Structure formats: structure tokens, C-alpha cells
């Protein structure tokens, strides 16, 4: 009966011949290799954008509204060489690092409290739900009243912009540590702070790192915006103040040079510092591809 349903075929076994086929691996051409490089492709795009900028600004011919690309580059170079940009950047970064470090410490304390008690958990969830959507810059007027014109206010708004995203990500990282890993930790007698340090933090590290990246981006934006609002306080303002000052003096090429620096520092931290931390940790461990 099955004979009617199934098609009958003879069996066969083959001897596998060696070297009967053509190319298995063939090297790519030089052109293909170059174009496969992401940096090369992105570099080409940047070059194109710069050309469009240069052409458009030459046609427009209004350095007050839109300076030429070449003018911006030379303004950037001049300010870099006479040390003004470096000094202003350093001022901004110094304040930023203070706020960032304080924010991370507070986030660590808050999440530790949150994972050890239920009320701490509720507290963290309520606070992040309330404050995470609140833009840090909206707190600036209040900060000015509380801490006056100066670094105190800047650090306060920076803490606000770092604390919530880092705490939120760290906490969700801790919550998603697998049951098996937790049991392994307890099996070998880990408890309390040692358990947090040796199991929870490394296991949640991909989330913690994401939180730190988001926190950094928020902090950088907040800082520049805050400086634009009140960089006037002291003699040495930051990058935001540099931009604001040059706008007042109608040195538009310098304004562009300031914006340039903001972008470059942002790219450097994102693509060099965080990228290297990622390569040395979560990617090496196969926890993120």
C-alpha cells in the first residue's frame, strides 16, 4: 500500500573527489577592501558635506549668517593654537566630570538601596518615573536660587541629568540577572556586598554601561545649554559661554568653531572611551555583539 504513495529510488554512495572544483577562497580586490572599511565610507560622506557647505556659503557670501567652511576651520585652528578653546573645553569637562562622578555615586547608592529592600525598590521606581522625563535645564532657575551663579548650580543640574538614566538602567540590569547566575553566586557562599560586587555588577554590566553612555550624553548637552544661559558668572566660562560670547561679538566663524569642539569632544568620548570600555568588557565576554 505504501508502494503506491512513495516514489521508489535506488540508493547511492559517492566517493568524494579532491581538487575537482574551482576556487574556494578568492581574495577581494583592493577597491572592494577599501570600500568595506566603514571609516573610509563615513569619511567620504563628511568630505561631501564639507564641499556642499563650502559651495553654498561661497554662493551666499554672508559671513554673518553662514561663514565659509574654510573660515570655520581656520577660526577653529586659531582658537586651538592660542589656547582659548582648550582652556574653555577643559573648564567644561572639569565641571562635567564632577557632576558625572557625583551622579554615578548617587545612582549606585540608590540602586543598592533599591535591590536590598522593597521600599527602596518602590522609592527608586517612583523617583525615576517622576524625574526621568524632567529636562535638567528646567531645574536651572531653581538651581540658581538655591546655589547661585557658579559651579554649584551646574553640578546640581548635571547630577539630575546623570542620576536617573544610570539608576534606571542599573536597576533593570540587576533585575534581569538570570536565576541560575544568582544561584551559582549563593552556592559558593557569596552574600551581601560581595555578592553585589562579584555577581550582580558584572552580570548587569551591559545595562550599566548603556546607562553610563546615556547619562554622559545627557550631561554633556545639559552642561552646554546651562553655560549658554549663565556663563557670565566667572571670568573663565566653558564652551557654552565661548559660543555665547562670540555670538554677541558677531564672530560667527568662532561660534561654528565652538560648536565644532562640542561635537568633537562628544564623538571622542562616545567612539573612543566608551567604545574601548565596551571592547575590553562586554564584547570580550560575549555579552553583547
Amino acid at each position: 500500500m505504501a508502494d503506491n504513495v512513495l516514489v521508489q529510488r535506488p540508493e547511492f554512495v559517492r566517493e568524494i573527489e579532491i581538487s575537482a572544483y574551482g576556487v574556494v577562497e578568492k581574495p577581494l580586490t583592493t577597491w572592494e577592501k577599501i570600500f568595506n572599511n566603514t571609516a573610509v565610507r563615513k569619511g567620504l560622506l563628511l568630505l561631501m558635506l564639507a564641499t556642499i557647505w563650502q559651495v553654498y556659503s561661497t554662493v551666499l557670501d554672508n559671513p554673518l549668517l553662514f561663514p565659509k567652511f574654510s573660515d570655520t576651520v581656520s577660526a577653529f585652528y586659531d582658537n586651538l593654537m592660542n589656547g582659548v578653546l582648550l582652556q574653555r573645553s577643559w573648564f567644561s569637562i572639569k565641571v562635567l566630570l564632577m557632576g558625572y562622578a557625583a551622579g554615578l555615586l548617587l545612582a549606585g547608592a540608590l540602586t543598592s538601596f533599591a535591590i536590598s529592600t522593597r521600599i527602596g525598590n518602590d522609592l527608586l521606581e517612583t523617583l525615576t518615573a517622576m524625574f526621568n522625563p524632567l529636562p535638567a535645564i528646567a531645574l536651572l532657575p531653581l538651581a540658581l536660587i538655591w546655589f547661585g551663579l557658579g559651579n554649584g548650580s551646574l553640578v546640581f543640574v548635571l547630577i539630575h541629568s546623570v542620576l536617573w538614566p544610570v539608576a534606571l538602567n542599573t536597576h533593570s540590569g540587576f533585575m534581569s540577572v538570570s536565576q541560575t547566575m544568582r544561584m551559582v553566586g549563593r552556592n559558593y557562599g557569596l552574600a551581601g556586598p560581595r555578592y553585589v560586587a562579584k555577581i550582580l555588577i558584572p552580570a548587569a554590566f551591559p545595562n550599566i554601561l548603556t546607562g553610563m553612555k546615556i547619562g554622559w550624553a545627557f550631561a554633556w548637552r545639559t552642561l552646554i545649554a546651562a553655560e549658554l544661559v549663565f556663563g557670565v558668572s566667572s571670568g573663565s566660562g566653558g564652551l557654552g559661554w565661548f559660543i555665547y560670547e562670540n555670538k554677541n561679538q558677531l564672530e560667527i566663524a568662532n561660534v561654528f568653531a565652538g560648536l565644532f569642539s562640542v561635537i568633537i569632544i562628544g564623538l571622542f568620548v562616545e567612539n573612543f572611551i566608551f567604545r574601548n570600555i565596551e571592547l575590553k568588557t562586554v564584547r570580550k565576554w560575549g555579552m553583547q555583539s
Partner: protein
Amino acid sequence: MPQRPLRSGLAARIERWGTKTMTAASPLLEVKGVTLQYKTKEHLVTATYRVDFQVYKSDRFVILGPSGCGKSTLLKGVGGYLQPSEGSMRLNGEVIKKPGSDRVFVFQEFDQLLPWKTVKQNVMFALTSSGKFKGRAAEDKAIQYIEKVNLIKFADSFPHTLSGGMKQRVAIARGMAMEPDVLLMDEPFAALDALTRRKMQEELLQLWDDTHFTVLFVTHSILEAVLIGNRILLLSPHPGRVKAELNSDGKDNVGADGRKLSDRIHDMLFADQIEERVTPHG
């Protein structure tokens, strides 16, 4: 009717002496009337009901049963992650209260290895965290056991670069390096492909021949139970109760009733299923 065989006085005496030593040797792990319950969001689930068994030194004690018989829960109880609501569990005469490094777990899941540590660091982590060894001594011990599972070439590799079978071998090496009183294995080979599983079972038996460690092994595979265990505890499901305790020599030999051990076990489990269909629970 089976006829009682005649014995010489000497043989009878030897047997009496034998049984005496058997009872005199106290069990390493004694589980008495243990009922384990855990809460889900909606129910209080009774996983096992008044389970008794004893594990002696160097036993390869297998807990076998269909899914839902509470065998994993039972192992977690022995591990100290769960307190029984009734009965007692004693290791070397002491009541099990919390997880400890005298009972080391090998899980089914691959993420039991810490991904941020290399193979060697994973084994060393266990030894140093528990305070058993420090520094150089821990490293030597780790190397010794990684050699035992033939992974010395991969000692400095990270777990994500290893195959499933290799990961489980690292977990076994880590467990054995702790030299615990009893090794608790929760379906350690269930996530592996059939060929690798077969190989790992043989390797485990070779390791046992080498060091005669005591292992409590949970599985739902009858063939695995017959191959691995020298003593098999059969649990019936919903909730887990002891159905039988059988001896095995690993060869699945034909017993006195003319049937293979695995067939007998299969029938016992199968009988349960029919029973359940006739008188369904809840």
C-alpha cells in the same frame, strides 16, 4: 512459587555481617518525609509530598520522574535554596539550612558559567569565593580539574567561545574542584545534542571511576538514569511522591521477571499516566 535457596552457615553469616555493615554505615544525605511547597502568583504549589531517601557515600543517586514530579525542586531543597514545609533534610547529620559549598550545583543552563571570567577563572572563582583555597593553590587546583575534563587547551578562553558540551564540562570541573560532599546535577546534559550527551555521560562515569565522588543526579530520561545511576529513585507526578527505588548496574540487564530495567521503569511511569487520565487532578 520461588524456592528459598539453601545456604551454608558461613554464607548466611557473611550475609548477616554484610547487612549489618550496610545499616551501620550512616547515610551521607538523609531526606525524611520532606514536603516542598512554593508560591506562584496565584497558587501554593506542592512540589513533593513526604519524600524519603538516603544517599550514601560515592552513590550515583538518580532522581527520575516525568516533568512536574518536583525533582528539580527536590534538588533545590537539598541545595538549601528552599526550606521544606514538613520533614527534614540532613547532610552528615546536620540539618540543611542554606546554600553552601559542601553541596555544589551543576545546572542545565549554560549561563551558570560567569561570562566575564575565563574557564580557569570560573573554576578559581568558586574555590576562592567559598574560601576553600587562595591564590596559587586555587590556580593549581583549578588546572588539575580542568585537565581532568580535557579542557586544558581552553583554560584561558571565555565561555562564549566554547560549545555547549564544553561549557558543561567546565561546570562539572568547577563543581568537582570544590570537592563537595555531594555534587548536585540538575539535568546537566538535557540541553545538549544526542551525540554530545552520550559522550558526556560516558565521561561522567569515567570521572566517577577516577575519584568516586557522590552525585545526586536529576533527569527525566529513563535511559540516562539507567546508565548513570547505581540507585534510581522514581517519583510520581503532581505532587512528587516516591514510587520506587531501584538498583542499576548501568547495563540495563534483564531482571528476575524477564524484563529490562528500563522497560520496568517505563511501565511504572506509563501506569501513572493512565491512572491520571482516569482520575484527573484538580
